[in-house]
């Protein structure tokens, strides 16, 4: 059961910004409802109005834009899974989208809603960190871009101001030849841990020239692990196969793990080590042209 509210249906981002400016914290953005309707039903959030941004034309657009993949805030997980632009430029994203929650949530839930809700146990923010994701926020005073790492501040907390709309997230596609992988683990409805990895290699060379490593769900917010990334750089695939454990140990050291229903901080830190190593090996194998079919219980590898 929902308590009464007024439903705004702006037809442009400008109109939506107008409503938000007027209503302030008494309004909540509504981009799919899979999260916001739940907390409204629970009474955890009480607002006077909902601002439905789903009807804003173009806000669900997924397209190549200036070398980036731009994903409109109201694109659903299902759209992400299927969009040709995603398959062309960030295919791993399509694969991960296929495993978000369940088919009903994927049908209705949106990328923007997911990011703006900032549930720490979610896949997209972690994954997008590995694509140097940047969110575009729009308000009456214009637009601003914010790296995802700065946007997500903590559990259910973002840098979005009450008068701002998350309009899109822009991902930097990995260069050709990059091997990427994503793993999530956990027995609960939402993941206990998610790790995204990318290994970039120079043209023709075997050595890793650059790397991305992002870990999420284990702490208050997803994080990149720069020291672990740096450690991989310069390694050959053989080095990686031999020394992945070192990187994993760095990741486990640096990750900000907190205990909750999903497990203790200690366990999550250890799982970070386990899965960073595993996923590095998967990515390394992919870089070498193999596709290892690793199966672990309660684990999804994309």
């Amino acid at each position, binding site marked *: 059961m929902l308590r009464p509210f007024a439903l705004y249906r702006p037809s442009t981002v400008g109109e939506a910004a107008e409503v938000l400016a007027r209503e302030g914290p008494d309004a909540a953005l509504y981009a799919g409802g899979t999260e916001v309707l739940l907390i409204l039903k629970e009474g955890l959030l009480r607002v006077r109005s909902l601002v439905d941004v789903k009807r804003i034309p173009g806000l669900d657009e997924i397209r190549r834009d200036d070398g980036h993949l731009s994903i409109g805030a109201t694109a659903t997980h299902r759209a992400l899974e299927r969009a040709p632009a995603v398959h062309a430029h960030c295919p791993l994203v399509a694969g991960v989208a296929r495993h978000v929650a369940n088919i009903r949530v994927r049908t209705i839930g949106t990328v923007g809603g997911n990011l703006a809700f900032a549930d720490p146990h979610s896949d997209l923010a972690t994954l997008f960190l590995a694509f140097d994701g940047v969110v575009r926020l729009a308000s009456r005073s214009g637009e601003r871009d914010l790296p995802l790492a700065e946007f997500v501040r903590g559990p259910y907390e973002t840098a979005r101001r009450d008068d701002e709309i998350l309009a899109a997230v822009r991902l930097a596609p990995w260069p050709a030849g990059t091997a990427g992988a994503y793993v999530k683990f956990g027995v609960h409805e939402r993941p206990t841990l998610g790790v995204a990895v990318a290994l970039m290699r120079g043209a023709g060379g075997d050595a890793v020239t650059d790397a991305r490593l992002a870990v999420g769900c284990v702490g208050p917010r997803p994080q990149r692990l720069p020291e672990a990334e740096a450690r991989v750089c310069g390694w050959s695939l053989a080095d990686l196969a031999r020394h992945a454990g070192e990187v994993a140990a760095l990741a486990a050291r640096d990750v900000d793990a907190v205990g909750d229903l999903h497990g203790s901080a200690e366990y999550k830190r250890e799982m970070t080590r386990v899965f960073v190593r595993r996923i590095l090996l998967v990515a390394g194998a992919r870089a070498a042209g193999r596709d290892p079919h690793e199966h672990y219980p309660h*684990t999804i590898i994309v």
Partner: protein
Amino acid sequence: MSAPGPLRVVGRSVRRTDALEKVTGRARYLSDLELPGMAHARLLRSPYPRARLLGVEVARARAHPGVHAVLTAADLTWCEPFYGPALRDRPLLATDVVRYEGDPVVAVAAVDEATAVEALDLVEVDYEELPAVMTLEEALAPGAPLVHAGEPLAGHFSDLSTLRARPGTNICHQFDYARGRGAGGFAEAALTLEDTYTFPRVQHYSMEPHGAIAAWDAEGGLTVWASTQNPFSVRAELAKMFGLPASRIRIAVPLLGGGFGGKTYAKLEPLAAALARVAGRPVRLQASVEDAFRTVRRCSARVRVRLGFRRDGGLVAVQCDADFDVGAYADIAPRVIQKGTYTATGPYRVPNVVLHSNAVYTNTTPGGAFRGFGVPQIAWAVESMMDVAAERLGRDPVDLRRQNLLAHGEEFARGDTPVDGKLEESLSRVAEAIRWHQASAAGRAKGVAVMMKASVAPSVSEAIVRLHADGSASVLVSTVEMGQGARTVMAQIAAEVLAIPLARVTVVPPDTSITPYDQTTSSSRSTTMVGRAVQDAAADVVGQLLKIAAAHLGVPAGALAVDDAAIVGGQRRLGYPELLDLHFGMRGGELIGRGVVAPGRTQAPLGGSTPFWEVAMGGAEISLDEETGAICVEAYASVADVGRCINPQQCEAQDEGAVMQGLGHTLLEEMVYEGGVLLNANLVGYRVPRAEDVPARFDSVFVENADGAGPFGAKGVGEGGLVPVSPAVGNALARLTGIRLRELPLTPERVWRALRARRDA
């Protein structure tokens, strides 16, 4: 009557009689019913595990437009406000204290749910928090705060007239049983093992949460439509509370969206009835899933077991001391602790036994009945330790069990029903199905576990079969259809005996004003007890038909036979409608058959001899992700001795479901409290098995020797499959890793910790 020919309907996997309505969405459950003018209720629940109520201010809520009734404990002066099947320790609404997070304090009925919620927003409650006891350790500590200070009144469950509370403590009932030389028997043991195992708080999560709709009529009679597994127990409770004769109360039960024991005994019905009385109109009280988590759960337990073996592996003595955490109100838990502890010796021959268990109050959701009724908690401990014993004795776990199994016809306990199945056959079948004697692949190991469970006794089931003028039949029984397929099975039994097509039989839904008495739909008892009553009632009708035909044909009834809706004798064949015409002298009138199954009290330790023994054995093969601690159940084999499957496909469905539910508490499920508050009263935080958790190889095997006490040699199934799951998986884990876990569920983190502790040691 000539000897019965081959069975026509019984023993066949006929379509469920309710399948069509269920696949088309026409099936009606409690939440689908609507009455004109019906109000909708919501409850205000305590946010604290234990607190004194200093003030409850409801004036604003009462004045809110659209509100029909606002109840607090202070308003319930016109009825007996306490209820509970074992102990009447539960108030309709909290009186001076609240005893768990979720204890109802205020109830509102309003024109719709939204208005009821608005009204509750206007209620102000002043609590003074009190120290709470959240665990067995806290509740049993000397000087622990008492969940219940006064002496509660005895409930309506006659068997528990001798409740043994320990005054001044949180123990509301103790169970004791001994035979042979008791603990003295350990003197004969060459090997004695002792250990303690714990079982978590888990919730049924029947997909349909509890619900009730109550309406009072102009003559002061009460009708309650309830999502309940035992309408007659609810009726008894309401009769006492509202001072009504049983005949003035009608409990009608639609289809249930699952029960699993969680809908036994009165839950929301008393509050719905009280609200309806005050509101002066029908009231629906529909729980949410979150409410269900705050309504009932399985009794968690700490079980200390001592096993004594002779050198040759024979069990010589068993001691079991169990503390069951029954939460804030006793519900049926005193009976749970008895039943669970009673079969602590498993299906084994044990000369010396001493059993003791306590039902312990804590400030948590009340514990009650849940599939297995106390047995899974005990079996987890005992069957884990049987494997430890096998290892210590250098024996194969299957062989050690086989050596100790009771034989067919052997006494389990003095005065109780002798063993009614061939346990060795079940054990052989489970070993075969899990391929016990083949080596597992690398990284895998197997475990087995066996169990035996008594059904409820003494116990009564009655049935009426009406053969109508057109030769169709109505079966009147109060078995609740909650998914287990009971209505289909009853129809099959009646169709078989009456020799009419299944489609000509209608099983009438339970309604205490129409359908005859049945004690409860639980304890895997319906096929055996109600089934026999239906068989007898149908046979009663057949007897009448034979008599009518014999008189008409001038031949002895013994020369006649029943065949395809007719009585045949020699060349003559009289169809049922024709016979009824002859009998009544007109087209009209019906034959009424009656069946009563009531074995009564006996000298058995629990007051009645079990109608049958539910025997179930399980074998699991697992693999383990040693780095994460995550277990994968690769294969599972479940063997149930059902005597005879009335409907093999439905037996299989029951058994598969039981195993999956068992995998839930074995690997995943646990209610988590923090600071007195239940953290995961929802399906995001409480993880039940999904389709992906089904073992890749999953066999459900039935032992059918037609030796059950039920109709056609059948006996009960439904609970058993769940019970061996935890110890079978735990034993497999021990055989794989050498690690013996004593605490459920076997979550990845718990297993990982154990692996690490061993590495560090």
